[in-house]
């Protein structure tokens, strides 16, 4: 390299003139260098992607019935491993030993049940015949098919009871008789809670009084009525061979304390809330009742003989359910698992899931925070001097926006529903600019003039033939509610509103230069977290398949500035569009 002394004044003039010439590189240059220098540290973007993926999968899985069933089957298997079950799965058209279990059981469970089962008696109304299923004769199908059409029966006596699907002909009762237990635990039995799904043959008209617990299945040719029932085993402790009654309590009745479907297929209306006591053998009082407490349940496990085998059962299993009076209805206390299950079922009953897309047109509001010309006066440098009002010097136009997502809507009452979900938004508007074909050094206007830094820009604000897409991609969590205004079973009219915490995933941020002549690409000023709100009204049209189509206008408005407080302008995005979606039950 030659010494400066060998240069003319022209070279020195050039050199000195551009000595301090600087340009601000885009931030992505550093990111590229960083990623190349540290290939193992791309964690921020990967982590965010993984987090989003996890959220989407989690929501999807938790709303997937088939996976829930798998989880339930796993729970049932656990119950089988620890408890004695009576599983009878009988169908009139079945041959050989093809005992398929109920809706939520399988052959493996059935086999396990057969090995540990107590006896099941099916007592016909004429009392002339009993059908018995025990470990020894459970495979004898004829025992079940002599007189009655028993389709399926799954009865759990376990700590974690199984949902049961039972078909009971009219005037037929279902009873359980246990094998004699050891002397120490003679009165011991198990809590018997299970949710039973009972199908009643159409030839047997259901009693009118339990219609509230019956769902009529119109799609079946046999016109089968189904009802969710919970069997409660009633133990007669006066006999060593206690004969326990199975009382079927409809889930709905259970939840609403309205009706009890007892072992004789009669429904009794509950006049008042009745209590049920829990009794253990060891602490059985003279009245035969003692409230079960946690202390009782924490006692050491003991052995109980079932089918001649010693089995270890917990004290919880030894709790006996006793009805205070035979003819009196009662409300049993549910196990935590069952209560949770019922709560989930109840939630799902009142909830729907909706998927939607919303094409829209989006624009922005723009306001200046401080008039810099007043601060600097007329002697300010050219690049800090404010121009006329910004609306006169640049032109922005609305552009196509898009959002897509899903939400879960939960009905609070007949008119009001709450909803929450996840949605992705693409917001956009266009600035008409002139591409000056090269970068130009200019100054950024900030609210705090101390932060006024030199930046580089390529576009000026004159309306030209180039377009700047002021777009960004957001992910948000809409939380809100709907109000039903009008409607019948088929068509309903709703209005709704949501508040949407929003995260901006990527954006094209262009801010104004100090003289308002240029657009500067400056993503560092973009606010990452924002809050949007949306208002909508829509029609919901229900089809025969149960799926509802929703359509209606929506307005979405951004509550916070798009940029950080340093920037001297306030920009708020909004868009107006049509929301189109489908809703379905779980």
């Amino acid at each position, binding site marked *: 390299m030659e010494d400066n002394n060998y*240069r003319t004044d022209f*070279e020195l003039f050039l050199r000195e003139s551009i000595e301090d010439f600087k340009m601000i590189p885009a931030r992505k240059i550093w990111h590229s260098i960083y990623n190349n220098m540290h290939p193992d540290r791309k964690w921020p973007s990967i982590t965010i992607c993984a987090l989003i993926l996890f959220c989407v999968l989690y929501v999807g899985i938790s709303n997937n019935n088939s996976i829930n069933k798998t989880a339930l089957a796993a729970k049932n298997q656990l119950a089988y491993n620890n408890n004695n079950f009576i599983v009878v799965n009988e169908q009139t058209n079945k041959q050989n030993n093809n005992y398929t279990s109920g809706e939520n059981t399988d052959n493996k469970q059935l086999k396990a049940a057969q090995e540990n089962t107590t006896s099941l008696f099916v007592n016909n109304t004429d009392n002339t015949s009993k059908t018995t299923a025990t470990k020894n004769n459970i495979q004898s199908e004829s025992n079940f098919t002599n007189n009655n059409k028993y389709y399926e029966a799954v009865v759990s006596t376990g700590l974690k009871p199984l949902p049961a699907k039972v078909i009971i002909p009219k005037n037929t009762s279902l009873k359980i008789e246990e094998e004699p237990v050891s002397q120490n635990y003679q009165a011991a039995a198990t809590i018997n809670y299970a949710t039973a799904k009972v199908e009643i043959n159409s030839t047997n008209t259901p009693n009118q009084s339990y219609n509230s617990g019956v769902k009529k299945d119109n799609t079946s040719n046999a016109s089968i009525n189904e009802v969710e029932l919970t069997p409660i085993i009633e133990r007669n402790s006066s006999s060593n061979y206690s004969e326990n009654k199975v009382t079927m309590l409809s889930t709905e009745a259970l939840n609403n304390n309205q009706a009890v479907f007892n072992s004789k297929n009669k429904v009794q209306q509950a006049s008042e809330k009745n209590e049920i006591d829990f009794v253990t053998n060891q602490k059985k009082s003279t009245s035969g009742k003692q409230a079960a407490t946690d202390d009782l349940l924490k006692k050491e496990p003991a052995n109980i003989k079932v089918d001649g085998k010693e089995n270890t059962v917990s004290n919880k299993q030894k709790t006996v359910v006793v009805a205070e009076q035979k003819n009196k209805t009662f409300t049993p206390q549910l196990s935590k698992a069952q209560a949770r299950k019922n709560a989930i079922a109840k939630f799902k009953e009142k909830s729907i899931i909706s998927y939607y897309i919303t094409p829209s047109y989006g624009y922005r509001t723009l306001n200046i925070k401080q008039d810099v010309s007043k601060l600097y006066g007329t002697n300010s440098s050219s690049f800090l001097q404010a121009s006329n009002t910004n609306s006169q010097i640049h032109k922005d136009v609305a552009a196509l926006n898009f959002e897509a997502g899903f939400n879960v809507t939960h009905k609070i009452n007949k008119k009001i529903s709450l909803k929450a979900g996840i949605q992705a938004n693409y917001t956009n508007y266009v600035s008409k600019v002139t591409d000056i074909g090269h970068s130009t*050094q200019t100054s950024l206007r900030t609210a705090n003039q101390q932060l006024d830094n030199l930046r580089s820009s390529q576009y000026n604000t004159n309306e030209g033939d180039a377009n700047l897409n002021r777009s960004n991609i957001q992910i948000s969590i809409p939380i809100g509610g709907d109000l039903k205004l009008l409607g019948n079973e088929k068509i309903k009219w709703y209005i709704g509103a949501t508040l949407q915490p929003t995260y901006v995933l990527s954006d094209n941020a262009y801010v104004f230069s100090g003289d308002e002549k240029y657009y500067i690409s400056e993503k560092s000023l973009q606010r990452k977290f924002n809050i949007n709100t949306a208002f909508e009204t829509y029609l919901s049209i229900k089809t025969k398949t149960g799926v509802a189509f929703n359509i209606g206008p929506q307005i979405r408005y951004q509550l916070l500035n798009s940029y950080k407080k340093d920037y001297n302008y306030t920009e708020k995005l909004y868009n107006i569009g049509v929301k189109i979606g489908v809703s379905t039950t779980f």
Partner: protein
Amino acid sequence: MTEEQMLAGSVKNNAAAQEAFYERFSPRMLGVCYRYAKNREDAEDMLQESFMKVFLQLQQFRGEGALEGWVRRIVVHTCINILKKNKKFSDTVDLMHVHDYCTNENLVPSIMQAKQIVECIRMLPLGYRTVLNLYAIEGYAHKEIGEILEIGESSSRSQYTRAKAMLENILINRNIIDKYQYKNNLGKSVITGNQ
């Protein structure tokens, strides 16, 4: 962060130190790249590749001379290599076409003189511009320029002479330099021996 800490951290591949290093030198180095590049995007590509080389070769810096000068040399060489790789040196024009380029000068903003001069330099054909950048601004000798650009030393001289004349015309037309003053003062060589 001091320059020593920044340098030591960058040699150890410390991300924070490298970022500080980048923040310190990238604005000026982008200005260098911009003088060689066709547009801003190309300049940023050059800058990215340059800093990759800088970080990879930083351990070779012996502390002889200014760090910025060392970085600048790598940047300039990287820019030249990229231009050679893209075979952009065929883009040369004769002096008679200077006026065609001057007709576009209204696109150059009059914000600051340095910026104006850079934009004027960028109006030159790429071959002229490169020689002028290397000789007048970076301080390379024509012999070195000939080796770097793989052209003859005399070719470098002639290209520089034409580039200089072209740039003078542009600067005078834009009133960045005064015609008479320039002819009376700036046009005189201090030492003419090595031109």
